[in-house]
Every structure is written in C-alpha cells, then in structure tokens.
C-alpha cells in the first residue's frame, strides 16, 4: 500500500492534454474567461438611479433571464411553447450556457432575481468554438460575415419587461453593449430583428422600404436560407412614402436603424416564435462616432446616468 495519492485514473486532465495545442492557443488568445473580470467592471459602471446593468454570473442569473424571456415571448407575443417550455416556464436552448447574458435589474421592484427587467444575449466567436454555431446561422447564410477578420458579435433574444417599456431600459442595455463592443474590439455586429406575427402581406411596405434604403454592402450581406426564403422586394422605390413607413416599424428596428444598421437579403418566418425575422448587420467603425454623439447629447429623463463617457473618450 502506498501513501501517495493515486494519480493514474484522472480522466479529465488527460483529455485536456490530448487536445491539439492550436485550439488551446486560440482559446487563450481571445479567451472569454481570462478578461471577463475587466469587462464586468466596465459594464457595472453603467448605472442609473435604481437600475443595475451587469453580465450574468451564474446559473441563477441565467434562469432569471430565461424566465423573463418566457413571459415576453410566449405569454405576451404568442410564440408556440414546447412541452418543456411550459413545464419549466423558461425559454431556453442549447446555446444559452455558452453565451454572455446582459441583464438589467430594478432594485425597487423586488428581491434579487425577481427584479429583472430586461435582457440581451451576446455571442462572440470564441463561444462558438465550444458549441459550433451562431443562432443566426439556423436562418441566414452569414458565411461572408464569418470569413471577415476581427471579432464579431451576435445580438439576440432582447426583451424588456412590459411594465418598463416606457423607461430607459433599452438605452441602458445599449450603453452596456457599446462598452462590451469597445472592450472586445468588435468589428461587426449582427443578429435577427423581428416583426411580430407571421403574415407577410401585412408588412409588404415596410420590407420594401428596408430593402431599398438599407440593404447591406455585398461584401458582408447575409442571405436567407433557401428553404426559409421570403422576398422583401414588393414595391418600387417611388411608391413608398419613407417617413410614413418609418413610423410603422417596430420600435426595436427603429432603434437599430438610427444606429445605421444594414439589412440582409430576404426575410425568414419563424413559426415557433410567431415572427418574421430580418437579419441586421452593422459595421462598428461606421457607427461609432454618430452613436457616441447621440449618447452624449441625450440624457434620460428622471434618472441620473453616470456615463462611462470618460472611458469612451479615452478610447477614441
């Protein structure tokens, strides 16, 4: 009998060694584990009177985000839940454990996790090294974006609690996203934006407005997958009154357009979520100045926002 601890049967350590060195190097070079602490601090500095913005720390935070998503998507916007969704009262998929979840809490509303008010889901390239896919890839062909150099960020699953739609939650989220963007030196933003309902004829004008005015440059243009493809070109450019149509767009897409977002070719009907999705693309180099000016000018009513402007100015 030996008194030394037995070293032979340690499975996981061996596996770690077996992995090819290249992948480990890649993981370390843009690891999202190593510099998470810094970004957490930066995002936490986005503060308002009683609102707190931060990244999810553990499974409880992510649970809270999933619960909010269930409330908004399934109970309010009539998405079709699966049996699992109903049982758990959550909206979840296999991507969730690998993503960064941005959360907004209102401390006046209630105890810890019941006070969640808004979420956003962020996916970067190193996260897909583990799982293998972006969410948008299931609906759009985004190979052109993937082949570009530099970091890319997918946005998705954004939602705000129905009682807080008239409050500056979305702006807080976007401020945090800009901090995130600058920290990770992100070159391209993309994601799905959705029109509610699955009736295409309702949105013919809006689609053609987007198609004519905001189509992405061919070098990064995403395209809807063939089996989901819905055309966006219904009217000529002359037939549309731009100002009128812009007012009828859903608020999230309006916000995106103000940033200077481009739109991919073709739309996709998402039957599970009862929406029509449009792929949006945004080169950060194009928008940064515009948006930063917008941030500086507009201060939100009734809440003192301690901006992290100092940080942003330094970077630019």
């Amino acid at each position, binding site marked *: *009998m030996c*008194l030394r*601890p*037995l070293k*032979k*049967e*340690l*499975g*996981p*350590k061996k596996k770690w060694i077996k992995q090819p060195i290249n992948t480990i190097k890649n993981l370390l070079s843009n690891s999202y584990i190593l510099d998470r602490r810094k970004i957490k601090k930066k995002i936490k500095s986005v503060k308002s009177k009683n609102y707190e913005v931060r990244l999810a*720390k*553990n*499974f*409880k935070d*992510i*649970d809270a985000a999933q619960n909010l998503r269930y409330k908004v998507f399934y109970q309010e916007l009539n998405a079709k839940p699966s049996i699992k969704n*109903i*049982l*758990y*009262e*959550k909206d*979840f998929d*296999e991507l*969730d*454990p690998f993503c960064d979840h941005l959360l907004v809490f209102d401390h006046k509303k209630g105890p810890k996790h019941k006070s969640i008010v808004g979420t956003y889901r962020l996916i970067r390239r190193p996260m897909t090294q583990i799982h293998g896919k972006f969410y948008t890839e299931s609906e759009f062909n985004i190979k052109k974006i993937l082949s570009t150099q530099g970091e890319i960020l997918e946005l998705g699953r954004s939602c705000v609690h129905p009682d807080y739609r008239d409050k500056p939650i979305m702006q807080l989220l976007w401020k945090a996203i800009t901090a995130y963007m600058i920290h990770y030196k992100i070159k391209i933003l993309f994601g799905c934006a959705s029109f509610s309902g699955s009736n295409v004829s309702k949105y013919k004008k809006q689609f053609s407005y987007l198609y004519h005015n905001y189509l992405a440059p061919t070098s990064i243009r995403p395209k809807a997958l063939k089996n989901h493809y819905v055309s966006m070109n219904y009217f000529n450019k002359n037939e549309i009154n731009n100002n009128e149509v812009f007012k009828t767009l859903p608020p999230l897409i309006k916000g995106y357009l103000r940033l200077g977002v481009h739109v991919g070719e073709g739309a996709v009907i998402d039957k599970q979520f009862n929406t029509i999705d449009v792929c949006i693309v945004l080169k950060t180099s194009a928008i940064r100045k515009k948006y930063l000016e917008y941030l500086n000018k507009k201060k939100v009513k009734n809440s003192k926002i301690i901006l992290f402007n100092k940080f942003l100015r330094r970077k630019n």
Partner: protein
Amino acid sequence: MLIVLFRLIIFFILTFTLLPFQIIIILFFTKFVYIIPAFYHKICCKILGIKIKKIGKISATKPTLFVSNHASYLDIIILSSLFKSSFIAKKEVSSWPLLGILAKLQNTVFIDRKIGSIKEQENLIINHLKKKNNLIIFPEGTSSDGNKILPFKSSLFNIFQNKNNPSINIQTITIIYKKVNGITLNRVSRRDTTWHSNMEFIPNLINLLKKISIDIEVVFNEKFIPKVSFDRKKLAFFCWKNINYTLINNLYR
C-alpha cells in the same frame, strides 16, 4: 412550479408501484435485494435530470467497502444507480417518514453513534460484509458543501485492525458537482445547490426540482487492501487524501 409538481407525481407513482414488490423480495428472496433499487434509482436520475459521467473502474470483487464524500442527499441516488450496494446510516434515519422505509428496503445498516457502542457497530458491519454485500460509507459524518471535504471520522475504519476479520477491499469515490443547466458551477453557486449544515430540506428539494439538468462526475480511484498493522487514523487520512486529491484536481485546476 409545474415542473416540480410533474416530477413529484412521477416520483410518487414510481415509488408506490415498486414498494410492495420490494417488500416481498426483502422478506423472502434476500438474494435479489438489489435488482429493484438499481432500476428505481436509475429512473430517479432521469426524473431529476441528473447526467452522470463515470471515470475509472468500479471494483467487481465482493465484498468491497466504498468510501465516498457526501454533499447532498443526491449522492445516495447517484451511487446506487451506478452499482449494487447498501449504505450505513445513523439510527435516526430509520424513523424518518418515507425515507426511513426506503432506506430499510435497501438493506441499510443502521448504527448507533454513541461512544459506547463501537463494538456493536463493528459486528453489524462485518455481518453485512460477510454476506458478500457491498457497503458505502460517508465517513465525514455530515454533508459538506461540495467545495471541500471535511475531516473523516475514523471510528468505522476500526474493523480493519481486527485480525479475525476477512480482508476487505476499499475503494474511494469522489463525487463532483460540475454543472447546473449546462453552466459550470463556481464556489458560491455550488454551495447553494448542495444540501449541507443547517439547510432546510423542503426548499432545497424544490430548488433542485426546478433545474433542467445537473451534471455530475463520479471518479472511482484505485482499490486497495489495507494491511492489518495499519492504524485506523492513518487509514482514514489516506482515504481522505485520495478523495481530496481528485476533488481539488477537478475543481481548482
């Protein structure tokens, strides 16, 4: 809350259908005691969404004394779904509602933890092992929070000092709580999922039933036959070292 109800209903249907069969078996056919519990615990794992990753070989020689760390009542379900054996428990467990009956049906050895009754404990354990049944002990005495291993109580290792007793294999097991809902746990969130110190049972159970999945690693270390000359305290420390080594290597590498 729907999932909690759903899981509880399935659990109760399962237990009360299998209960009468197991009672008959334990009264008349003592050879086949472990068949139903193994099946039952495997299904319990499915109901709770526990995914077990097994590392290392389980000792096949009978009888073997398994020494394991203890962090939650889930340990019992996990271990008995992997191999056939029974547990050692304190005497108070036998009078707990439902759990006491379930424990008795799995041939659990109940011991008195008073100071004077060490010889009785020894006899009970050795009688059990002589029938060529495996045993699992949790020498920590209570459950830890899963981040560390508490010091072992050495009184149960006394059986190896007696020369009249047959030689028995020891295998140490490390149970590691890795992920909840696919997300790797950190120190704080692991402390919240396990059941330890003065936590209340029912809120902890409800929290557990809400979870989508729990990933657990069970590491089986190499088995060994302790020498008779070995001190019981040294033996306990050796087992502790073994388990601690694998746990720390897994968590804080």
